[in-house]
């Protein structure tokens, strides 16, 4: 009897415990807690600030009014690339936070082609701010008169097109001026850079019109600037990292955000980077602000609960402690009560009293016109595609490689020049370096017919591609090699050292060094060797599988 009584007490206690637990979470544990998810696509420049905040917010178990807890998932993506992904609905985020508002009118115009309302409504709040600047190595900036003399887009553009390069400033040893910005169809800083160049070309600071872009002088000025570009790229963050890793022989200057300079200089001052100091040049004609708007999308897939939850997360990001942290990452907080103090100072290469003026944001139509003009005048690429067709490629691998290669070629323009080399025991050239326009159909057919079999002569093929590009490529074009390989070299006459000698001897000094992008395809690929080859040219190695090879080729295409 007594035992039954104790059992009864135990059962009651368990129930009480469960009831108490439910009180805490709003649901019965173990049955799967109800949660409302907020997905965010954001510009990668704020990754270092945002990522830890997402983790802390999720850990705080914040709730919406109905008691559901909020789960935030944030993914970085190029700001312009993400517009296209959202319009095509290949991603359906709750919140879109690009680097700046500059492209919002274009996003709305695109969205309205299939919807009755805007995708981004008025009144978006800014998360943090950072001006678009030209990042330059301090000794080079000083050669231009920094910090006393103000420097503008026009000076940079003229320097970029000058044959003399740094010699005109008394530094022939620095060679030509090497300039870079990201791809205007993928990244905010890229579109901003070409808009600024269009203003400089037209000699205006506001009211830029599509008619201005018809002016032959404007077009040739812009084409000249583009001709000095080393390569483009999908993300401003990656561009900055390359510049800061490889130093002044790789790039003299690039269009970046102020906050990226502050973080680099913090690293240098901490001893984490051995590079020369880098400074922000605030263009004298004016610049644009990256204002990181937080747009809760007006899209059918966003539920009222998600809107509410996204608002809760926004309020968290705008709270003072989170805004204070943004300052540590070199951003200017959007909370006006936070002063612009260290690390926003000259020690970190920046001047919080700048910029002095801005360029007017053009209308969506003018932005379209600038983009299409850029397409016409952008620097063409001389590209050699090198593809492994050894026996180990059999099956799914060769199939995916063939189809993604065809899509990759479709991303190139008719003005680009292309050579394709297939290697196994033999090295065969499917097409010699020449304009793609005249041979597009033919080359597509030949690539679709590639078959596998034999050994892997990776080194010999690499040397042959490099020699061919050195001989036939133009140093007025971007010159690049894209190598895909799935295994270790088994049959080359040359050694890895000979490959590195061949590509290394030309890469650093030459003004338009050949970039070699490598793809380690599948698990057996020789990642170390491919990485070594790619990085010795300042390019990048990718790891890939038949499932994502398409995406990898598409990303490489953003460099041209």
């Amino acid at each position, binding site marked *: 009897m007594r035992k039954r009584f104790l059992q009864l007490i135990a059962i009651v206690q368990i129930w009480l415990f469960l009831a108490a637990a439910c009180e805490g979470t709003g649901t019965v544990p173990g049955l799967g807690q109800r949660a409302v998810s907020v997905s965010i696509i954001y510009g990668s420049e704020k990754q270092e600030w945002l990522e830890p905040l997402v983790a802390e917010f999720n850990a705080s178990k914040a709730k919406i009014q109905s008691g559901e807890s909020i789960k935030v998932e944030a993914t970085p993506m190029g700001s312009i690339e993400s517009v296209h992904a959202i319009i095509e609905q290949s991603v359906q985020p709750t919140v879109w936070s690009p680097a700046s508002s500059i492209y919002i009118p274009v996003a709305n115009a695109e969205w309205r082609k299939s919807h009755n309302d805007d995708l981004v409504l008025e009144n978006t709040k800014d998360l943090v701010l950072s001006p678009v600047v030209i990042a330059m190595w301090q000794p080079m900036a000083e050669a231009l008169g920094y910090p006393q003399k103000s420097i503008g887009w026009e000076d940079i553009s003229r320097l970029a097109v000058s044959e003399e390069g740094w010699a005109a400033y008394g530094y022939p040893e620095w060679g030509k001026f090497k300039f870079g910005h990201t791809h205007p169809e993928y990244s905010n800083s890229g579109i901003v850079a070409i808009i600024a160049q269009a203003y400089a070309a037209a000699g205006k600071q506001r009211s830029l019109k599509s008619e201005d872009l018809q002016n032959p002088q404007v077009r040739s000025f812009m084409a000249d600037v583009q001709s000095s570009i080393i390569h483009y790229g999908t993300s401003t963050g990656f561009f900055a990292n390359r510049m800061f890793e490889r130093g002044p022989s790789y790039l003299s200057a690039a269009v970046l955000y102020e906050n990226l300079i502050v973080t680099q200089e913090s690293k240098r001052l901490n001893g984490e980077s051995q590079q020369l100091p880098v400074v922000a040049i605030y263009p004298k004609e004016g610049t644009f602000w990256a204002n990181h708007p937080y747009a809760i999308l007006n899209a059918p897939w966003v539920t009222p609960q998600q809107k509410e939850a996204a608002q809760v997360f926004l309020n968290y990001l705008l709270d003072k402690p989170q805004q204070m942290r943004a300052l540590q990452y070199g951003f200017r907080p959007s909370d006006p009560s936070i002063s612009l103090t260290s690390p926003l100072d000259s020690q970190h290469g920046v001047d919080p009293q700048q910029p002095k*003026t*801005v360029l*007017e944001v053009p209308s969506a139509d003018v932005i379209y016109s600038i983009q299409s003009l850029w397409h016409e005048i952008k620097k063409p690429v001389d590209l050699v595609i090198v593809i492994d067709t050894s026996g180990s490629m059999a099956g799914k691998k060769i199939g995916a490689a063939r189809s993604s290669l065809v899509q990759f070629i479709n991303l190139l323009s008719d003005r680009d020049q292309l050579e394709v080399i297939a290697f196994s025991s033999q090295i065969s050239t499917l097409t010699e370096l020449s304009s793609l326009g005249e041979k597009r159909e033919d080359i597509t057919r030949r690539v679709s017919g590639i078959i596998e079999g034999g050994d892997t002569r990776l080194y010999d093929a690499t040397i042959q591609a490099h020699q061919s590009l050195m001989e036939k490529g133009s140093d007025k074009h971007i010159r690049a090699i894209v190598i895909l390989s799935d295994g270790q070299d088994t049959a080359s006459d040359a050694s890895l050292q000979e490959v590195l000698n061949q590509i290394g001897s030309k890469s650093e000094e030459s003004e338009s060094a050949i970039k070699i992008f490598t793809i380690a395809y599948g698990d057996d690929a020789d990642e170390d060797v491919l990485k070594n080859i790619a990085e010795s040219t300042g390019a990048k190695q990718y790891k890939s599988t038949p499932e994502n090879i398409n995406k990898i080729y598409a990303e490489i295409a953003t460099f041209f």
Partner: protein
Amino acid sequence: MYTPRINWIIFSFFVLISVAVFVASLVSPLVRSYSYAPLRDLILPPPKPITLYVLYSTEKDAWIKEAIQIFEKTNPSYEGHPIKVEVKDMGSREMYLAVLDGKEKPVIISPASSLQISILQDLSASKFGTPLVEVSNRNSCRSVFSSPLVLVAWQERAQAIWSREPGKDVWQQIQKLATDPEGWGAYGHPEWGYFKFGHTNPLKSNSGFMTILLLTYGYFDKTSSLTTNDILGNKDFQSWFLGLEETISRFGESTGTYMRDIITYGPSVYDMVSVYEATAIEQADNAIGRYGELRVFYPPATVLSDHPFCILNAEWVSPQEASAAQIFIDFLLSEPIQNLALMRYGFRPAEKSIRLDQPGSPFVRYETNGLKTDLPPQVEIPAGNILNTLLDFWSRNINR
């Protein structure tokens, strides 16, 4: 022990009277509020509270919330009915439009200025036959405090154009500078780019509306008798006015958030804006931590954001509510609440006995930034139909 019968009668009578008095006292509205709550509610359910629904413009948000907290602590009542205040903030124009089309049924409305009351009178008279606000009755609309429209610029830039005061033709000067292709180059500072003037969207925010009114008066160099013909019949005025408005790249949604942006982005985006004096005071300290000091200028004739509190003459407002509303407005005009408006929020109290230059007042603290206690003269507020004409003209040509 024998108690005489008469004593019992007297005792019982006394007890009865005491109980009756006690009960009566609890029922009486006058005594109720002082008695023990659970006991009085047992005897008679509490009287229904009178709820005052108030729509107010956003600039006075912080002040009104603080004032209501203090008000409710005084247990206010009318004829024994406790007074409760419910509030909702709204843009000033949105407010009268919501009242006109019946979306909102407030007892009191308090837009940022009498401009909106003037329009509401005009529109409601033509819609309902009688106006929703009786301005003839002095007590139905009372201003609690005011703040004039001023020009705010970054100190360094202000000095480059107006080392002392702007002079009488301030609006002409601004228009000329903003439309000059040379921009700041004309004043020796080409590095500052073109001159960027700004104000809020007149359709959404009162300060923007006040700005375009002052611009219009400024063009005609007068301070009264503006006509619809001035606006619609004068081509020179139109191209002058639209020329300036077209240089403005973004019109703010509300004065408060617009001013925040000015401080956040600094002089690269805004050289000079036209906002309320109180808004400039609110951000003066923040400005120093960002891009330096602000400078305030008073246009030669201004217009006041006078924050009228108007009790509506509408069928949904009972006489009891109207009386309770008077009690609430009296409270807002009481000294401590008026002082709060001045000392913490930089408004000019309607209660004239409160001195603007008292120690600790923002008018003393920011005197070097150009703040003045003396008000410039004010322009005449035109009739509702003229104001509407101006808004329509702006809306047709500029609205974006």
